[in-house]
């Protein structure tokens, strides 16, 4: 590591810290994009098996080169801009969708030292950055100058704003019990307590004492991602493909990449905040990034499973779930956690 540092210093001189940071960003984004590609493959394969099909199996062994072929196909296709579309916003919208999905990764820790920017308020930063993801959807819907796209955009805007509230409340519970906004601290705090001392780490993670919030966060996260069963924004049967109906080629692919990058992000956040991050579930096994990846894969599998299992929510049912079910649960559990922390039974000291 030191040799690498001095080598870089020798070549780039004073600009080395900037180059080093850029290198680290590439080291995060490149595997992320690769996982996005293979998540689409996994989705088709998993849903295929759940529906007693084989899924992609022609391009490469087990269809493993399928996502690369799909990417190449989208890259070579023409981008058609509708005649009366607002060209500038039409082009900017996919960028606005993917930028927050990538920017949020800046503060996501992979182990307690492996993090690009270990800032104090990393949880707040993630909330702020991910709340901007909705602009890509709204603007693409408006700029396309198409009925279906606009309807999809409006549905999506209302849905994302509604579910962000319950998501925010579950995060408030997390930061109350961890007494920190820093994701590294949040993970470290989870590995302390009675069960962790007994070597049963997985019982001391936040998912157990905050079980209602875990469920609310997971479901709100699915809704925030516009994934099935909350994918009314792109309900094929009603509004063709929703907000990205007018997009083709790489512009469409960017929306696709953003959706899957966001899925991986929500999986990472859920693992970090509720499932103990990189900590191993039992005391005698060493901690490591492997555990984080395993937990993320499990959450991602849940997302795919949801899609294969549940029928799409009707729009009014979706709003009812957000405002009349999740919001009261969050408000009550917030008070419960507050009282619990002030009582002698407090387990988060």
């Amino acid at each position, binding site marked *: 590591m030191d040799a690498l540092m001095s080598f870089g210093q020798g070549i780039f001189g004073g600009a080395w810290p900037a180059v080093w940071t850029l290198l680290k960003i590439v080291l995060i984004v490149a595997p992320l994009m690769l996982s996005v590609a293979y998540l689409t493959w996994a989705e088709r394969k998993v849903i295929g098996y759940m529906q007693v099909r084989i899924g992609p199996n022609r391009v490469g062994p087990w269809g493993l080169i399928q996502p690369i072929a799909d990417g190449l196909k989208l890259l070579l296709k023409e981008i058609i801009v509708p005649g009366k579309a*607002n060209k500038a*916003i039409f082009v900017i919208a996919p960028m606005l969708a993917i930028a927050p999905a990538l920017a949020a990764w800046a503060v996501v820790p992979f182990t307690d030292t492996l993090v690009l920017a270990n*800032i*104090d*308020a990393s949880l*707040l*930063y993630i*909330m*702020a*950055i991910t*709340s*901007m993801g*909705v*602009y890509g959807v*709204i*603007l693409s819907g*408006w700029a396309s100058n198409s009925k279906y796209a*606009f309807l999809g955009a*409006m549905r999506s*805007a*209302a849905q*994302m*704003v509604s579910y*962000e509230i319950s998501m925010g409340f579950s995060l408030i519970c997390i930061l109350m019990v961890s007494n920190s*906004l820093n994701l590294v601290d949040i993970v470290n705090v989870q590995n302390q307590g009675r069960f962790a001392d007994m070597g049963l780490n997985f019982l001391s993670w936040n998912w157990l004492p905050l079980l209602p919030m875990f469920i609310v966060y997971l479901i709100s996260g699915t809704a925030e991602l516009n994934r099935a069963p909350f994918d009314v924004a792109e309900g094929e049967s009603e509004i063709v493909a929703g907000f990205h109906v007018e997009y083709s080629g790489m512009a469409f692919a960017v929306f696709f990449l953003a959706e899957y990058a966001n899925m991986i992000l929500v999986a990472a956040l859920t693992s970090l905040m509720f499932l103990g991050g990189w900590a191993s579930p039992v005391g005698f096994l060493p901690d490591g990034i492997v555990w984080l990846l395993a937990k993320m894969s499990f959450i991602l599998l849940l997302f795919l499973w949801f899609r294969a299992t549940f029928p799409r929510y009707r729009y*009014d*049912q979706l709003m*009812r779930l957000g405002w009349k079910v999740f919001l009261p649960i969050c408000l009550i559990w917030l008070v419960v956690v507050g009282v619990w922390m002030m009582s002698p039974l407090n387990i988060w000291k």
Partner: protein
Amino acid sequence: MDIQTAVFYFLSAILIFASLRVITARNPIHAALHLILAFFTCGGIWALLQAEFLAIALILVYVGAVMVLFLFVVMMLDINIDKIRQGFWNYLPLGALVGMLMVMEMGLVLGSKYFQVAAADAMVPAGVSNTKEIGALMFSEYVYPFELASIVLLVGMIAAIVLTYRGPKKSKYTNPNQQVFVKAKDRMRVLQMPVEKD
């Protein structure tokens, strides 16, 4: 010029440009988007001042929530620009007067000695969490103004509902509670009957 000053001028240039475009853009959507850009850049400047909580709160609240709903409304309105531009010169003197007043007030506030902080005091040592400090201050020293502000917001929310609620609608509606508890046997009856032969 050190890097912080360079970043400050860069962000300020974007901020001034975006703010100007908010009032000069002909398309209301473009104006709203430039307002979002202005908020975002302003958040950057605050972060540069080491006020990371305020910077993130600005982006979270204004960019992430308020402007989404604002954009939502603007998109659905059919705004005729030419009609709005009419009478620009009639309103100009009054507008200029209000503008001058605001500039004067800002000058008075920023120029007074109560708002001057020595550059040495403004530097935050590493390891001090801005968010924690604001929270501690807000819930100890300023707890009554804080509670008062939340009550004012609550009153605003209730007032908005009272003003817009026009009584129960006459239209048909579904009761989700009943829908959720429906069982298959409430809707369908399977009959046992002998085969009919003709």
